[in-house]
C-alpha cells in the first residue's frame, strides 16, 4: 500500500497538462535523436540540458523532459538499425542482426512495431522493478568487485564468436580487432599512454559512436559509390503496415526473459544498456538453438535486444538514484542534471526527496506509454523513409552523422577517425568479416581489461582471486558450460543438440 500511495504522490506531481506536453515533446525529440546515427542518448540528453535552464523548468519538469528524451532515444535507436542497417546508437547494435534482415524480407513495418512493443515491455518491467525493488537492488552493486566484473565480461566475450551465424572464426577475428582497438588510450592502471603514437586525441581511447558510424554508415557509403548505387543494401520492400499480433504473442516469453537479463545488466554500474541487449540476444539465441534461425530476421531476434536494452536503461537508474553511481553514459548525464538541480542522489534520496524519486518514476511510466502510443502509429511514417532514394538518403544520414560526431569532441580528428573506420568496415565486409563483434570488442574489451587489472592489483597477482566468490564462479561455469563447451562438443556429438523452446 505504501508503494501505491507513493506512486499516487508521484503522479500528482508528474501528471499535469504541462508535464504531459513536455513528455510528448521529449519522447519525440528522443526518438529522433536515437534514430540519427552519431547522436546517442547521452549526447542527446546533454544537448538538451541547457534548454531546461533557458526554459526555466523546475526540477520535476526538467526530469520529465530529460527522462522522456532518454527513454525516447532508447526506442529510437532501433529505427535506423532496422531500416538502414546502421545502429542509431550503441545499444541498438544487436537489433541490426535480425531487424535488418526482417526489413529486407519486406517486413520493415512488422519489425518496427514488434521492436516498439518489445521496447515498451522492457522499459515497463524495468520501471516496475525500479519502483518495487530499488533500495533493495542497490545492495547488488556492493556484491560486484573486480573479480565478478571480469567473470561477467568474460561470459559476454565467450559468446562473441557466436554472433555471426556463418563463420565463427571470422567473428572471433573481428572481436580481436575490437579488443586491439580497445587497448588504445591511457592505461588507468599505470597512467601510461598505449598505442596513441603520442597523439593526444587518442589518449582517451576511441569513442564507440565514432567506430559505429564509421563501420556502418561510412562503409555503406563506400559500397554505394562502388556499386554506382545499384548494389546498395538500402532499399527494402514495402508493404502495408499492420500490427503483427501473432509475432507479438509468439515472443512473449522472449520479451520477459530479455527484460530480466537487461534489467540485471543495467543495475550493475559500468555494464549498461549495450551489455544488456547483447546478453539478452545471446541468451535467447542459445535457448532457441540452431532451429531458432537467429540472424535471418526472426521475431525473437528483434524482440530480445530491444527488450534487453530498454530494460537496461531502466535498470541503470537504480544505481544512479540509490548510490549516485551512473550505470551508463546517459545516466551520468542525468546525474549531472540532478546535481545542477541541487538534488544529490545517494542512499538517502528515497527518504529525503520522495517527491523527486516518485515524480521521476511516474514520469518514466508516462513517457513509456506516450512512446508506445506514438511509435506504433509512426511506424508507417518511418517506413516511408525507405521511399527516399538511396542517393539522397545515404548522404543525408552521413552528413547528420558527421555533425553528430563533431559535437562529441568538437574536433575534426574524430571525423578523420570515422572515415578511417569506414575504410576498415569496407575492407572487413569485402572479406566477409562481420563488423558487429568489432564494436562489441571495443565496447567490452576495455571494461574487461580494467576489471582484470584491478583484480590483479588487489590480489598481488594471484589468479585464484578471480574464482574467489560464488558469483564469479557462477559466471565462469555459465561461460564454460553455455558457450565454450558446445563449440568443442559439437564435433563429438553426432546430432546437433535439440533444444525445445
Amino acid at each position, binding site marked *: 500500500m505504501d508503494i501505491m500511495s507513493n506512486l499516487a504522490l508521484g503522479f500528482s506531481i508528474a501528471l499535469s497538462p504541462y508535464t504531459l506536453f513536455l513528455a510528448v515533446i521529449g519522447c519525440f525529440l528522443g526518438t529522433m535523436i536515437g534514430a540519427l546515427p552519431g547522436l546517442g542518448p547521452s549526447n542527446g540528453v546533454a544537448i538538451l540540458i541547457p534548454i531546461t535552464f533557458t526554459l526555466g523548468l523546475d526540477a520535476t519538469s526538467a526530469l520529465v523532459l530529460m527522462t522522456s528524451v532518454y527513454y525516447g532515444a532508447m526506442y529510437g535507436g532501433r529505427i535506423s538499425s532496422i531500416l538502414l542497417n546502421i545502429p542509431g546508437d550503441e545499444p541498438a547494435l544487436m537489433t541490426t542482426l535480425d531487424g535488418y534482415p526482417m526489413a529486407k524480407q519486406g517486413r520493415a513495418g512488422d519489425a518496427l512495431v514488434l521492436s516498439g512493443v518489445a521496447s515498451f515491455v522492457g522499459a515497463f518491467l524495468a520501471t516496475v522493478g525500479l519502483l518495487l525493488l530499488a533500495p533493495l537492488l542497490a545492495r547488488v552493486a556492493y556484491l560486484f568487485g573486480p573479480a565478478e566484473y571480469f567473470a561477467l565480461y568474460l561470459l559476454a566475450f565467450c559468446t562473441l564468436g557466436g554472433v555471426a551465424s556463418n563463420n565463427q572464426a571470422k567473428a572471433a577475428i573481428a572481436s580481436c580487432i575490437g579488443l586491439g582497438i580497445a587497448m588504445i588510450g591511457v592505461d588507468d592502471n599505470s597512467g601510461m599512454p598505449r598505442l596513441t603514437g603520442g597523439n593526444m586525441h587518442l589518449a582517451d581511447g576511441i569513442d564507440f559512436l565514432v567506430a559505429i558510424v564509421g563501420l556502418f554508415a561510412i562503409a555503406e557509403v563506400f559500397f554505394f559509390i562502388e556499386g554506382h548505387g545499384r548494389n546498395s543494401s538500402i532499399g527494402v520492400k514495402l508493404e502495408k503496415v499492420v500490427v503483427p499480433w501473432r509475432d507479438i504473442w509468439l515472443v512473449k516469453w522472449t520479451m520477459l526473459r530479455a527484460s530480466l537479463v537487461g534489467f540485471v545488466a543495467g543495475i550493475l554500474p559500468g555494464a549498461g544498456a549495450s551489455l544488456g541487449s547483447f546478453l539478452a540476444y545471446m541468451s535467447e539465441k542459445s535457448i532457441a538453438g540452431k532451429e531458432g534461425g537467429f540472424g535471418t530476421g526472426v521475431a525473437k531476434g528483434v524482440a530480445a535486444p530491444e527488450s534487453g536494452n530498454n530494460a537496461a536503461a531502466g535498470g541503470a537508474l537504480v544505481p544512479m538514484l540509490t548510490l549516485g*553511481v551512473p550505470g551508463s553514459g546517459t545516466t551520468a548525464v542525468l546525474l*549531472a542534471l540532478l*546535481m545542477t538541480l541541487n538534488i544529490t542522489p545517494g542512499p538517502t534520496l528515497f527518504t529525503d526527496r520522495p517527491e523527486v524519486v516518485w515524480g521521476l518514476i511516474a514520469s518514466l511510466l508516462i513517457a513509456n506509454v506516450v512512446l508506445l502510443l506514438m511509435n506504433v502509429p509512426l511506424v508507417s511514417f518511418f517506413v516511408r523513409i525507405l521511399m527516399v532514394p538511396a542517393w539522397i538518403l545515404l548522404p543525408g544520414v552521413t552528413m547528420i552523422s558527421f555533425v553528430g560526431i563533431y*559535437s562529441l569532441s568538437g574536433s575534426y580528428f574524430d571525423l578523420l577517425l570515422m572515415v578511417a573506420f569506414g575504410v576498415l568496415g569496407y575492407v572487413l565486409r569485402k572479406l566477409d568479416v562481420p563488423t558487429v563483434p568489432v564494436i562489441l570488442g571495443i565496447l567490452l574489451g576495455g571494461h574487461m581489461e580494467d576489471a582484470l587489472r584491478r583484480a590483479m592489483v588487489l590480489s598481488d597477482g594471484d589468479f585464484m582471486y578471480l574464482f574467489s566468490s560464488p558469483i564469479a564462479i557462477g559466471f565462469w561455469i555459465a561461460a564454460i558450460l553455455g558457450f565454450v563447451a558446445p563449440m568443442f562438443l559439437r564435433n563429438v556429438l553426432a546430432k546437433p543438440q535439440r533444444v525445445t523452446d
Partner: protein
Amino acid sequence: MKSTMNKSILAGLLLSLGMVGNANAAECIAPANPGGGWDFTCRTIGKIMHDIGAVDKPIQVTNMAGAGGGLAFNHVVAERNDDADLIIAASSATSTRLAQNAYAGRVAADVRFVGAIGADPGVIVVAKDSPFQNLGEMLEAIKADPGSVAFAGGSAVGGFDHLKPLMLLQRVGFTDITKVKYIGVDGGADAITQTIGGFTQAMTGDMSEIVGFLKAGEIRVLAVLTEERVPGFDDIPTAKEQGFDVVAVNWRGLYVPKGISDDAFDSWADKLQQVADSAEWKEAMVANGLAPFTKVGGDFQSYIDGVVDEVRQLSKDIGVIQ
C-alpha cells in the same frame, strides 16, 4: 509526408548545430564529457553568471573531452589564444596534470588562471565496519604491512586521488610508496561502492562524492584534508588535527586564454567574484558538498604556481614522473 520527414531531419540537424556554438555568446569549455565536475563548473557558473546579470546572454557550454583535459588545453593554447569570450573549467586535476607534464609539453603559464570559487575537500573513508577508527591506526597498519590496505579512488594511477594517501604516508616517514595498493575506478561513487562491498579497505576522494553515503551511515570518514573542519561536517576531524599535516582540496575554477587583454581578464575575474558572492552559488556549494575557497585574480595564479611545484616534487618522489 516526405516534406514532414525532411523537416524532422532538418530539426535534428539544427539541434546538433545548436551545440556547436553561437558566435555572439560567451563559451565555456568543459574539458570532459557531460556529467563530471568540469561540466558542473561550466553549467553552474555559466547559469549563475546569466541569472545574476553578469553576462547578458546564456553561456554556451561545449564539452571537449579528451586526454584528461589536455585536448581542450591544447585547443585553447594553439587555436584560440586571443579569444576573450572563452572560459574553461579547471580543477586540481588540471594543475596535477600540468605538474606531471601530462599535457604534451604545455605548462601552466600557457594560459591565465582566473580563479577558484569553491573547493571539494579531500577525504579518506572506510566502510562502517572497518577496524580503523582514526587515520593514525590506518597509517600504522600500512607501515606494518603495505599490502593490507587497498585504496580505491576515482582518478587514474598517479592522479589526485592517488596522491592523497601517498602524501599522508610521506608525512609518517613511509617511503616505499610503490607498495601501496591503489585501483582507479570510474568515479568516486564507484570507489565508495567497492569499499563498502569490501573489495578495497579504504576510499580516497572528495567530500561531494561521499555525502549521500555518509548520511546513510554506510561509511566512516577518517579524515578530511583541509586546514579547518568543514562547516556542516563539524564532527569529521581534519588530518592536520590528528597530526598529519596534509591539505588537499579539489578546487573548482576557470582559466582563460593567455593572449587576451588585461581588461578582458579583469572582467572575467570580476564576473567570477560576483558568482562567488551570490546566494545561488552558496546554495549550489552546500548541495554539492563544496567548501568555501575563493581565490580570484593574481592571488590565484601564485597559488597555482605553488601547487604545481609541490605536486611535481611529490610525483617525482613516488616515481609517477622522472
